[in-house]
């Protein structure tokens, strides 16, 4: 298993909850992009990424998230990211994408 992605719409809070399980790299990021694109294509809403079981992410994953944000930002929707491991959190600081996404501590 390289990456498993669970996506559900949270009716109570009106957002897409995305749980990537495993590794997001150049091989698996297209799948992440396709699945989330499909979801927001069906229904535009905020996206919450739960990073609890995200083991690895690199620039290709960051690029994917930016691409997804571009799809929803015209409707003033945001991407919230929570439960990130410290070594992944650090990548958002380095690239200053902590200012682009809402990182919840």
């Amino acid at each position, binding site marked *: 298993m*390289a990456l498993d992605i669970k996506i559900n719409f949270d009716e109570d809070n009106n957002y897409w909850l995305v749980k990537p399980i495993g*590794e997001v*790299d*150049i*091989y698996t990021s297209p799948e992440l992009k396709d699945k989330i694109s499909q979801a927001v294509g069906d229904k535009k809403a905020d996206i919450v990424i739960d990073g609890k079981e995200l083991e*690895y992410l*690199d*620039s*290709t994953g*960051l*690029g994917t998230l*930016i691409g997804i944000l571009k799809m929803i930002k015209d409707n003033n929707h945001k991407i919230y990211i929570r439960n990130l491991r*410290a*070594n992944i959190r*650090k*990548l958002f600081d*380095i*690239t200053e994408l902590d200012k682009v996404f809402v990182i919840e501590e």
Partner: protein
Amino acid sequence: MKSDVFKLTIPSKPDYISVARLTSSCISSKLGLSIDEIEDIKVCLSEACTNALERTDEINITFEVTKDQLIITVDDVLLPENDDEKMEEIHFGILIMKSLMDEVNFSEKGVEMIKYLEDGLHEKEKEL
């Protein structure tokens, strides 16, 4: 002390970059680096491989272990020439490499990334 050298060549396919990543993790762990340092090295090596991917049929990686350094070289890694938006990920990759490694040197051949080793290696040496 003569340095120890590992050489790895992988086909230029996205699905094999994880193999290079695992190899870097294995070598770093053997050198007694911390979990955080191992994660940093994994990301940096992946960034270098991702950068080289479309430029070559096979990606050549060398891990050189000296008394106080782990030197990882990846051929065909280039600094992007312009600020094209398509290059955003490549720019992020380079920023990540420069931030997480102790030294990053680009040349015509590719990139050399250095992680300084502390006590971990010395203890391993004593065992040997």
